[in-house]
């Protein structure tokens, strides 16, 4: 068990915190001006992007010992759910945006 002090003297912590802070500002900047028509597709697209959690699921699954049934079962489930999030999310978003495309051409 390390102490809180140790946690805050760790260089890795700061490296990660830097990424976090920059990403927060980036996220705000990137979508601060968006027409309301795009709110739903944008939400759906962002929904697919947080499916990146699948990578964690793959690592859990890949590192599970072959007799660790708990990790195998939960990891397997996590891979399925994460994939659902990613694939379903991107496909749904594409379907929504496809319709915007169609009417653009007709215009």
């Amino acid at each position, binding site marked *: 068990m390390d102490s809180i002090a140790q946690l805050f003297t760790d260089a890795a912590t700061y490296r990660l915190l830097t990424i976090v802070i920059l990403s927060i500002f980036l996220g705000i900047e990137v979508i601060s001006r968006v027409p309301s028509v795009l709110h739903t597709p944008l939400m759906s697209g962002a929904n697919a992007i947080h499916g990146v959690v699948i*990578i964690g699921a793959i690592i859990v699954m890949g590192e599970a010992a072959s007799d660790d049934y708990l990790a195998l079962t939960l990891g397997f489930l996590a891979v399925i759910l994460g994939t659902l999030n990613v694939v379903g999310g991107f496909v749904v978003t594409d379907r929504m945006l496809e319709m915007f495309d169609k009417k653009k051409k*007709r215009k």
Partner: protein
Amino acid sequence: MLLPLIYLIGSITFILGLKMLSHPDSARKGNLVAAFGMTLAIVGTIFLYRDHSGNSLGNYPWIFAGLVIGSIVGTLAAKKVQMTAMPEMVSLFNGMGGACAMLISIVEYHHNPNPSMGMLVVIVLGMLIGTVSFSGSIIAWGKLNGRIKDRTIPAGQAINFLLFAGILTMAVLLVFSISSAPFLFYGILALAALYGILFVMPIGGADMPVVISLLNSFTGVAAAFGGFLYDNPVMLTGGILVGSAGTILTILMCKAMNRSLKNVLIGSFGGQKTGGSVGGSKEQGSYKEISLNDTAVLMAYASKVMIIPGYGLAVAQAQHACHELEKVLEDKGVEVSYGIHPVAGRMPGHMNVLLAEADVPYDKLKEMEEANDQMAQTTVVLIIGANDVVNPAAKEDPASPIYGMPILEVEKAEHVIVNKRSMKPGYAGIENDLFFKPKTSMLFGDAKKVLQDLVSELKQV
């Protein structure tokens, strides 16, 4: 060094993807860019990931089986879902992501019998937020498709506060290793699940988009904790980006409805019927009905007709019938446009997507400001299953819960025809004075049937 490079590319595609998604012209490409980056990151992880001792991942058959099952089910679900049910689908996928984060934390908790404090914090927070997002999204999904009804929980806020306090206490006990009993970990899991349910349960249907957007950013944060756990930059950037972008999006949505986030969450909108007194105490007078035939004649001889769609149109799947009506009217020389309120339907942009499915030309859809400008020159306004977005109480009655929300000012038009199934108030549970105004006529019936009948009537005029 290949994997860090792949992760960097992944992060960049997420940023670019989000950026492109916020402009109509590049939106579709943006989605594909992000999807490409995601694929790259997933494939890279599978084949190039090494743990601290340099071992590569195992259990490939399991991983690929999971990926294949998830992809097939996800694609089928996303392709098959009706346009009207899109919001539910997004909520459901969001819940899957939350559950994934939750499961990862559970496994890692068991993997690390003696975790460092930092690691424990990350595991517990990832599990906590993932679980709230999961249970909350499932409730939101159920509410949107009507399986779960709105329900006010007595003393709901007090219970939520207690739950929160309970979670906090257990988390502190666990993290500071005052006790390391596994029941604490699972206690937090159970309370978090309950919290998610109670958090979404009382929120009214009209506010559901806001809640889904908020839960979406929760899942983003949960994914970011996974990034901390594995020291994985792409999970971190992807998760945090969605967390912050999602929060901003949530606030933008609230602004479109002119309500504060706090207001939505503590919510008097759907739960308590504060608006009831508005309708009840005031003399409402009577409404008048109009026949299909009269409607057809009125519209056929109008110079300009504006159609205002709402959730009723989506429920009745009447978008094609609506387009049909538009074509018949145009053949008769009537100018037809659609007035789209930013929050009409169950999600912002819901109506645009729906009408686009029926091939309604893009330039016929007018955003609220433009629609309001044209209102005075409009002969007939036909409101199909919309209610709160045309409720004059938003402008006139400071006591109304929707007071201050910008609305489509239909009263400026010459005639207002409202198609509804009955006189029941709208989703927000607020009486609508519009129905009792002298200009307004009611045309009762299912939107699809009424529109189809209207089309055949019009053909005979």
